[in-house]
């Protein structure tokens, strides 16, 4: 009888040890599989050569007042608008508090005469019209997205239509008076 009790205790201790081993092995297996998956997922992120191309330098010297151009940055269009005094004025006299995405023009355009925005509608990613002078610019004189009718003003801010946010201003710095680096 005493013998059986002893055997039971041993079995129970054995059982615990088996569980511990089993759980540790299973945990290590699962974590190991996860570690194998990580490089695969990570490989989908931008590669080193893509990252190296993430900034461009742009000369503004050739853009006449009132003219807008498109440049390619990270595979997307960037709009550079050399604004007229009237366009600047329109952008600055707006009551910011009434905007859907309140931002002053002073924050968006480091130099008042140049507005630099990513030309991708914040709704679903179409390229708004209005860069070429022949294109529709919408009732606020900025850009008009043909996909779902979002209207942007001369500061690239959303004024009407479904887009939730203003056109993105990419990080940029002026290297000198006529050269800007984007990204």
């Amino acid at each position, binding site marked *: 009888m005493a013998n059986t009790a002893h055997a039971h205790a041993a079995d129970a201790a*054995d059982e615990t040890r088996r569980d511990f*081993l089993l759980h540790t092995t299973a945990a290590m297996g699962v974590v*190991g599989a996860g*570690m194998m998956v990580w490089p695969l997922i990570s490989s989908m992120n931008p590669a080193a*050569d893509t990252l*190296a191309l993430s900034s461009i330098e742009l000369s503004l010297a050739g853009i006449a007042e009132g003219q807008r151009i498109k440049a390619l940055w990270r595979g997307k269009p960037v709009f550079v608008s050399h604004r007229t005094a009237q366009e600047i004025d329109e952008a600055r006299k707006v009551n910011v508090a009434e905007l859907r995405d309140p931002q002053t023009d002073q924050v968006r355009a480091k130099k008042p005469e140049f507005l630099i925005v990513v030309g991708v509608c914040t709704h679903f990613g179409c390229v708004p019209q209005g860069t070429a002078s022949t294109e529709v610019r919408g009732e606020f004189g900025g850009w008009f997205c043909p996909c779902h009718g979002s209207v942007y003003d001369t500061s690239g801010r959303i004024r009407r239509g479904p887009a939730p946010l203003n056109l993105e201003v990419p990080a940029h710095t002026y290297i000198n008076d006529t050269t800007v680096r984007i990204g």
Partner: protein
Amino acid sequence: MKKYLLAAAAVVALAIPSVLPTSLRAAEHVELPKENWSFNGVLGGFDRAQLQRGFQVYKDVCAACHSLNYVSFRNFEALGYSEEQVKSLAAQYEVEDGPDDSGDMFKRKAKPSDHIPKPFANESMARLANGGALPPDLSLITKARVGGPDYIYNLLLGYEEPPAGFVMNPGSSYDKYFPGNQIAMAKQISDGLVTYADGSPNDAAHIAKDVTAFLHWAAEPKLEARHSTGLRVTLYALIFAVLAYLTKRRIWKNIPH
């Protein structure tokens, strides 16, 4: 006991193919002296100062004829240069870009994201300038030759007078490690060929070793990450295997087999 023998046999069987082809291939060539490279061994890596010296040799000597197509200036940060140093290094080179607004191609200073410019615009020009021979691209050279870095190093130093009676083609040099012994590249590496800023020895053997190490970095830039990741991953798998064995033994305890 028998099953352990079987397991051991399985391990050996798995290992055989990994040894066999290499040794078979080695037999085809002259015995190469084995060099003691910093990148050999379980955690072997690159010696940054040596890579910088090797790059200097490539830039001053090899680059006149040999391209390094798969290396960009930005990669040189791995040699221990700062971002600024890489930028000014790139700016010493010119690359073609364009077309500009008038439709013309133009030359501009290289940026870190640019690849190292080739010495010749195309294969025909390269052959024309080198007596009909094509200087191979060097970005993979240590992996593209049997013997790897040992071969490249010894080849660079293996120039000697042809044995009596050996008929040489015009324009060829005799190298005891080159297959067929007649190599179109003339002897390049000699004592004092370059002077290192860090005052390192610049005899032929050291120069050859530095440039070979640099070329091996160019061919296998992720070698250090491979070794360090490998050690961690393999140790993890080893511990897992031991635990799995113990668990298996527990589970099977009551099964006679």
